[in-house]
């Protein structure tokens, strides 16, 4: 069964997450995504977080983050600083439906790859640019990271512990928020083109997309001129509402750092409150007038938080979650990397997809996160690993653009295309023991390969 986007061809000039992630989502659903990269300027995700932390050999084909963001794509290397490279890119655009990129506008203008330029090559092209602050405006050429746009958007300002400074996610969070909006934007543009035959330019501001998801503060400021305090995990209406410690017997047994197990609980009704008291065996809470209705619970939310922690601490997080959910109380164990990978619910739903890697990489078949949607009639295509560097040069340039064997040899000779970085420079990470000591990792488990293989046997 072909994916719903079978027949859509996308040329991607992406880097890191914002565009690569969104184009992966479209590739998963059947679009042909041809990803361009440079051999001179190695994408950092290619060489970071490599398999078994081993940077020997072709390390640029072993990076976890690269495989994560580039499933189901074709990989072509192209040196765009040379006119021949740029000419090939334009040939690709001439047979494409979508061109997407996430460089700063300055770079795109220097290459002569603005929408007006591409429109001359392919009148109905859909061009998607994703930038930190938007393609035009006084900040247009300001480079940005996820944290920078999380700050600019207003999200970081409001996130933090009670009384503490602003805090941000430990991942480039807004790359995903904007990436999710990018998928939608491409689909909207494709729908429009299907009806009218018209292409267009889509200008994604990673900041803007993120601000669109925080009306709670922006509308409140707009209407009431008010800015609320940072609330930690507390809610504006529910109480108790928080993250509470749990028992960590397992990790203490296996020598891992203990005492980092948690459960989240959110109570919105009197019935749920009574159920929570009952599950936790706290009869006196159930009759305490401070907690008798949702308003009084909310007013005494600090007391509630102080009471809950010492009681949840005796529970296993998963056991408490199931016990509370049986009574229809919203509760969820805080899943770490491993819990998430082996979560029985996600496994039952086939959320993870086992992907085979090229044998030259030495990476066994591994599970990767799938997609947040399931389409009953047009499901995702079967997952293929992200391309090795230059893996599809021949397929794309010969078969699609009709380059001869001599052309290909000449391109390689001139350094326009290639199969590895011109200046290989791996990112060496400290040994796992050291990463745990520094606090970057909670723990590591030496038998992880066997655990993964057992849970995800693949084909």
């Amino acid at each position: 069964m072909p994916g719903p986007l079978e027949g859509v061809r996308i040329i991607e000039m992406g880097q890191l997450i914002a565009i690569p992630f969104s184009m992966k989502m479209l590739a998963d659903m059947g679009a042909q995504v041809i990803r361009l990269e440079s051999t001179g300027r190695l994408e950092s995700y290619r060489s970071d977080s490599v398999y078994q932390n081993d940077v020997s050999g072709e390390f640029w084909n072993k990076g976890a983050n690269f495989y994560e963001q580039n499933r189901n794509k074709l990989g072509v290397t192209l040196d765009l600083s040379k006119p021949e490279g740029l000419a090939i890119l334009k040939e690709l655009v001439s047979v494409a439906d979508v061109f997407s990129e996430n460089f700063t506008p300055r770079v795109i203008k220097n290459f002569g790859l603005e929408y007006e330029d591409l429109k001359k090559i392919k009148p109905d092209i859909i061009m998607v640019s994703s930038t930190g602050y938007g393609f035009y405006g006084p900040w247009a050429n300001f480079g940005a990271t996820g944290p920078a746009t999380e700050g600019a958007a207003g999200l970081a300002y409001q996130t933090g512990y009670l009384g503490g400074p602003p805090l941000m996610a430990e991942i480039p969070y807004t790359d995903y928020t904007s990436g999710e909006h990018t998928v939608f934007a491409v689909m909207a543009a494709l729908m429009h083109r299907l009806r009218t035959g018209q292409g267009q330019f889509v200008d994604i501001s990673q900041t803007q997309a993120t601000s669109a998801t925080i009306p709670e503060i922006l509308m409140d400021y707009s209407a009431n001129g008010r800015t609320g305090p940072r609330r930690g995990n507390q809610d504006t209406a529910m109480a108790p509402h928080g993250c509470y410690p749990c028992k960590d017997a397992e990790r203490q047994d296996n020598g891992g750092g203990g005492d980092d197990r948690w459960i989240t609980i959110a109570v919105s009704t009197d019935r749920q409150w009574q159920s929570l008291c009952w599950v936790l065996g706290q009869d006196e809470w159930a009759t305490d007038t401070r907690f008798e209705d949702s308003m009084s619970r909310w007013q005494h939310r600090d007391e509630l938080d102080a009471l809950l922690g010492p009681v949840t601490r005796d529970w296993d997080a998963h056991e408490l979650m199931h016990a509370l959910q049986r009574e229809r109380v919203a509760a969820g164990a805080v899943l770490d990397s491993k819990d998430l990978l082996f979560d029985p619910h996600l496994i039952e739903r086939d959320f993870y997809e086992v992907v085979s890697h090229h044998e030259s990489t030495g990476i066994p078949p591994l599970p990767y996160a799938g997609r947040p949607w399931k389409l009953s009639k047009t499901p995702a295509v079967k997952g293929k690993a992200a391309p090795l560097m230059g893996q599809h040069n021949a397929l794309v340039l010969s078969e699609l653009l009709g380059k001869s064997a001599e052309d290909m040899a000449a391109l390689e000779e001139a350094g326009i295309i290639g199969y590895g970085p011109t200046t290989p420079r791996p990112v060496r990470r400290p040994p796992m023991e050291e990463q745990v000591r520094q606090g970057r990792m909670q723990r590591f488990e030496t038998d992880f390969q066997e655990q993964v293989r057992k849970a995800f046997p693949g084909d």
Partner: protein
Amino acid sequence: MTEPAQTNRALDGLKVLDLTHHIAGPYCTKLLADFGAEVIKVERPGGDPARRMAPFLNDEVDPEKSLVFAYLNTNKQSVTLNLKSEKGVQVLKSLVAESDVLVENFSPSVMPSLGLDFQTLQGINPSLVMTSISNFGQTGPYRDYKAADIVEYAMGGLMYISGAYDREPLKHAFNQAQFKAGTDGASATLMAAYHQRLTGEGQRVDISIQEAVATGLRDVVNNFTYTGAVRRRQPNHSGDLSRLRASSDGHLIPNPGIGAGLNWDVMVEFLDLPELAGEKFNTPSARLVHAEELGRILDDYFVKQDKYERFYAAHQKRFIFGVVQSPEEVMADPQFAARNFFVDINHPALGTLKYPGAPFEMSETPWQARSSAPAMGQHNQEIIGHRLGHTSEQLAQMRANQII
């Protein structure tokens, strides 16, 4: 064949029947409506519970004055319908017959219990796309589990890595998981609609909010599958250059650049901090060794600085500094102003307010605010009356029977 009309709405002609409530579903249908789909919002007789969600204009608790509701329901029409009545279900089915897409975000057991399971609806309209957004998806052992945004953060893997190293995990403010799932729901709905346009086939779309969170975690799971490591919240005391730091007037993210591309000497000169020159700090590994001292020097420096002055100055040198903006600063941001991000929308009960506008720009089919959020049942007459052919007497009867 008549030539399709050229309009400047990307989703012109897409008819969406919207049974959603709260945030995730309404954000999905807002995206569709704001880019041109016709969205009919079906509210229960008491209205979408989001109408009772704070904040309100001037804190007046009124179903027409919830600010988040007003934001989430622009460009939609509202009808009220009691789906627990036979007549209500019958009216809904007539609406299904003329819709391309139905979106709902009830618990998975609700639609079947109303006799509105996908098979039944497909019987009425074989090319229907039915999108369901739910906490944990339509299948699996946690299918009927309850959730709030914080529970989705926990179960989606984002909670564990967020917050301070030695404290409880911390979620983002507000309802980010819901917004993620809403966006994903809109994308997946259009994928199915695209297929529908090409083949006439309908299908079921199942969105899990947990999976919406778990899809966007970069290397959290891969740390384990690649190295056996479990990632946790990061220690905050290091000299990590990408850290957020306090300024005299707030906070900024004085990240000078990424990895090996950073020219340390230029950075030291820019900050005018000669004590950072030399080999004690000029390589990534040296900075790791002297992380605490570096962190202290940078903290002492930035806390005396004006965040916008440093932000603009850094970008002159192409250091990719970021700035933490308050809502007030966001709304005064010259970049947003140049892009007209905040848009005036006039609403009968709220008056004219500035709303966050286009999440992204489309050159030919721009984001549009055609109408403000509807009053509860505002379009009963027009849609249930005129379009479905019920007389005024029949409408009065339905109102008397609490169907609408």
